[in-house]
């Protein structure tokens, strides 16, 4: 009963406040009036009676306050009061509030967005069964190496996969180019993934001859096959080969990447020595068998690596897989992205630090100006705890506002981030803002609130008691917190310098990348992959005449200047390599033949791409006509393999060929692999062959997935439709995919550095703005505190420029210390960026200098308004001011 009455009374007191208040008012009014009536009855005038009644009653407000307390309205009441008061205080200083909330929301928003990425890509467990026992082996193996590993290794169940194969899907509407992955039979069972429909591959289905199966991705099944379950057991035509559909994977299964559309079994065949030991070098994943630790697996894999080169039919380089290890799959999958994400996380961490420092500084400055208010409240009996709680409530209120706005900014920011990051970033599709991220942000907001709230709260409540009521000692309060504030401002400048330097280095690197001469001209060139089935191209002459016919028809289109095909488009992300034998260059025993990047082209290729011939001649239509045995080399290849002499007239041949080819010309280098390197480090040179039956790939086939390049003055979209029409008209079974201008190919190749740079520039700009606000805050506080001193100085004859110096000195101090600190720490920290940089050293003096100058100008700018205000101080007003 008492419990219920208390609850009711508390309920009424807290949630039906206005009713409680009006009842209390009515009751007290009744008391006073009744008392006054009695007094009036004893002969006092009505007016006098009311007056005496009020006096005898005592302080009404105090009674009400005690009454509220008695009703238990107090706990919530205090909080509400604090909140109301806090809100009022914040509303009354909108400048402070807006700056603080914006500062925090930017910090929290940027952090939430980046944390969402880190969470989605790095932290969240892989969507597979028992992901903790999944591992990745850092090294790649051909089929033969993998099969040996599968048979010999005891601590792991292993599976191999190879991305980057493409398959024409024909026989069902428009031909489609599918992105596929070749997998060993155990691939799905190792991952612990089950198809949503049908079955996974059975052991043994990755053997040549019994490999005619395929598993579809959910999206392909939906889009191409109308989500029809009866597709199971039916065959589809991939590259002209029928394969039975045995399963469909669920939508959430996106391994090894989200763009995978079909999974096909490997076709292991030990009799095909070249493909078995020299074909695709595949990454290997594994699942630890029960009871075996990752360390044991690591030791066993290293043992295996020491044995496996002897199994190869040819000598393997000593450094092949030399640093092989076993890592958690989650880490192995995102290895490339990992470092970049941590960089971003570090950068936004700095932003949040700056934001916190900034708000702390603002709050500290403001707390000092509120000394008097707090002193009055303390003098009137407010407990210290109560004052601290009040100030903390304000801080948390600010942080929560900032957090809310921050979450909003984060959702927007994450959209931008996902758009800015390269689409092939692993697990990018998995990232979204979820409750964990919200918890992180919420925690961050509250922590930040406490962090920047506590110091000023404790400081001002302590300072309040002793000093502030006494105006004469008013200046003394400044020095205590002044040191803290200066330290904060200096830290802020240092953090900002660090970010500006990082951004500067990335900009310089990006500019260097954009100014790289790729060796070709991308303007007005349209590219498209036109890819007949391998089956179709098993007859080389059929394939070659298909392309010849296609080029002829395209050439006939008005406004098309030149057309050609090439097997590996520069910067297109594909590599074609062959071992090459050079006449009179004996390969030392035990060493492999040099590996060449092999460009197979039609004669007009150099003309379309405007790749200059340095010496000798390019290909002519005469070379195109049959099995002309000619070749071109690039300038750097000529220097490397024919040092001091001309390669023209010398002979080379593909490993395994009997006929020699004559080098007829030298062309200038092209950035074929990426904008930073012509070719990957593990390839030694570049050679061009005319597209003919003897220009074979490693498997002995001729390239059948050529890219058409068209130089034309036609409108892009027009040209695209002309191209598609022409291909379809020539052979309706052949898909034209990746139709895009060469410019797009180039810019896609730098999308990763571009996105990193953009993000860092945004962070640095944020840091600069926050730093500017921070220094401005500290200085203007300083000026307002020292108005009296400045007035006295001026009255005593100080010049305006002395005042200027007085303020600038402080600004210069922050600037100098902060910049030095920032530069020093940058020297150590920018090394982390080294892998992201091209053509600029992590300790680039120009960037460091520019960052220092930029930061100095920003601090100068921050000084401007406070300094001007100080110089305009009127001595008379200032002296009267206190």
């Amino acid at each position: 009963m008492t419990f219920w009455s208390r609850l009711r009374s508390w309920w009424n007191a807290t949630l039906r406040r206005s009713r409680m208040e009006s009842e209390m008012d009515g009751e007290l009014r009744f008391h006073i009036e009744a008392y006054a009536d009695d007094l009036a009855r004893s002969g006092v005038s009505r007016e006098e009676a009311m007056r005496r009644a009020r006096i005898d009653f005592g302080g009404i407000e105090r009674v009400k306050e005690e009454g509220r307390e008695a009703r238990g309205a107090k706990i919530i009441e205090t909080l509400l009061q604090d909140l109301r008061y806090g809100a009022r205080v914040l509303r009354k200083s909108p400048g402070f509030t807006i700056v603080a909330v914006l500062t925090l929301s930017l910090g929290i928003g940027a952090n939430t967005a980046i944390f969402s990425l880190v969470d989605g890509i790095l932290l969240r467990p892989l969507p597979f069964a028992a992901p903790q026992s999944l591992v990745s082996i850092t090294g790649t193996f051909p089929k033969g190496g993998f099969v040996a590993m599968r048979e010999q290794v005891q601590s792991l169940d292993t599976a191999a996969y190879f991305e980057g194969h493409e398959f024409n899907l024909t026989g069902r509407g428009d031909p489609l180019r599918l992105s596929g992955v070749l997998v060993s039979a155990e691939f799905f069972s190792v991952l612990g993934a089950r198809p949503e429909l049908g079955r996974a591959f059975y052991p043994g289905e990755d053997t040549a001859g019994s490999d005619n199966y395929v598993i579809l991705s959910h999206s392909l099944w939906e889009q191409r096959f109308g989500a029809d379950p009866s597709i199971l057991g039916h065959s589809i035509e991939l590259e002209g080969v029928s394969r039975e559909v045995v399963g469909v994977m669920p939508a959430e299964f996106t391994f090894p990447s989200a763009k995978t559309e079909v999974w096909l079994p490997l076709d292991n065949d030990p009799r095909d020595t070249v493909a078995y030991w020299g074909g695709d070098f595949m990454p290997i994943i594994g699942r630890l068998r029960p009871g075996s630790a990752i360390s044991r697996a690591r030791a066993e894999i290293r043992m295996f690596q020491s044995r496996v080169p002897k199994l190869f039919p040819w000598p393997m380089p000593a450094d092949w897989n030399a640093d092989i290890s076993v890592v958690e799959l989650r880490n192995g999958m995102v290895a490339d992205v990992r470092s970049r994400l941590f960089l971003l996380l570090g950068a936004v961490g700095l932003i949040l630090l700056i934001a916190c420092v900034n708000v702390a500084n603002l709050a500290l400055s403001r707390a000092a100006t509120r000394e008097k208010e707090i002193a009055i409240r303390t003098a009137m009996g407010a407990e210290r705890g109560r004052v601290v709680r009040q100030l903390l409530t304000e801080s948390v209120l600010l942080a929560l506002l900032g957090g809310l706005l921050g979450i909003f900014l984060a959702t927007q920011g994450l959209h931008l981030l996902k758009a800015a990051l390269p689409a092939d970033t692993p697990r990018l599709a998995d990232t979204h803002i979820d409750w964990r991220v919200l918890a992180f942000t919420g925690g961050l907001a509250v922590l930040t609130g406490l962090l920047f709230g506590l110091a000023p709260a404790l400081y001002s409540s302590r300072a309040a008691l002793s000093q502030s009521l006494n105006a004469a000692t008013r200046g003394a309060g400044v020095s205590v917190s002044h040191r803290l504030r200066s330290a904060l401002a200096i830290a802020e400048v240092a953090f900002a310098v660090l970010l500006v330097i990082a951004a500067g280095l990335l900009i310089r690197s990006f500019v260097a990348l954009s100014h790289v001469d790729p060796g070709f001209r991308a303007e007005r060139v349209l590219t498209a992959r036109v890819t007949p089935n391998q089956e179709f191209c098993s007859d080389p002459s059929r394939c070659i005449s298909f392309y010849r016919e296609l080029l002829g028809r395209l050439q006939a289109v008005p406004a098309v200047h030149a057309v050609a095909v090439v097997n590996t488009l520069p910067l297109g992300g594909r590599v074609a390599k062959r071992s090459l034998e050079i006449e009179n260059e004996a390969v030392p025993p035990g060493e492999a033949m040099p590996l060449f990047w092999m460009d197979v082209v039609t004669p007009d290729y150099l003309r379309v791409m405007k790749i200059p011939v340095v010496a000798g001649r390019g290909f002519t239509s005469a070379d195109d006509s049959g099995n002309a045995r000619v070749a071109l080399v690039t300038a750097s290849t000529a220097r490397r393999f024919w040092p001091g002499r001309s390669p023209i007239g010398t002979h080379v041949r593909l490993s395994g060929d009997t006929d020699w080819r004559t080098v007829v010309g030298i062309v200038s280098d092209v950035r074929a692999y990426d904008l930073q390197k012509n070719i990957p480090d593990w390839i030694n040179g570049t050679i061009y062959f005319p597209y003919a039956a003897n220009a074979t790939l490693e498997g002995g086939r001729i390239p059948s997935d050529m890219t058409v390049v068209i130089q034309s003055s036609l409108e892009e979209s027009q040209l695209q439709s002309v191209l598609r029409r022409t291909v379809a008209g020539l052979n309706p079974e052949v898909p034209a995919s990746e139709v895009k201008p060469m410019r797009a190919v180039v810019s896609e190749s730098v999308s990763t550095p571009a996105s990193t740079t953009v993000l860092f520039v945004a962070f640095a700009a944020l840091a600069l703005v926050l730093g500017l606000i921070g220094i401005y805050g500290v200085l203007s506080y300083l000026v307002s505190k020292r108005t009296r001193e400045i007035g006295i100085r001026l009255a005593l004859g100080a010049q305006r420029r002395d005042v200027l110096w007085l303020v600038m000195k402080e600004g210069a101090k922050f600037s100098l210390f902060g910049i030095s600190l920032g530069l020093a720490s940058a020297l150590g920290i920018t090394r982390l960026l080294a892998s992201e940089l091209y053509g600029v050293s992590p300790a680039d003096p120009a960037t460091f200098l520019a960052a220092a100058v930029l930061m100095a100008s920003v601090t100068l700018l921050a000084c401007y308004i406070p300094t001007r205000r100080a110089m305009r101080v009127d001595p008379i007003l200032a002296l009267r001011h206190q």
Partner: protein
Amino acid sequence: MDKQLDLLQGTLDMLILKAVSLGPLHGYGILLRIQQISKDRLEIQQGSLYPALYRLEHQGWIASEWGESENKRKAKYYTLTGAGKRRLQAETDNWNSMADVIAGILGTKPEEV
């Protein structure tokens, strides 16, 4: 009657419970009744009455209801609850035994020790 006594700490609650136990009263009425019973020998701060009333109501010892006063004004009337009755009994017993003990101590003569 001649001299007013200050209220002993903590006794106001007891007096209010007692006053209300004699019949429903509004705040001013409680004040008057205590003064009347004590023959104006107790000085009660008018303002301090209300926080005490609210505290007692919060504890569930008295209940309140709006009604009409003698001179046709709206007034809030307090009544004793069951719990309040028990409380008053306990307080009274406690007070009486305390008063006995203290009276005994104060009444002690030297030869009795």
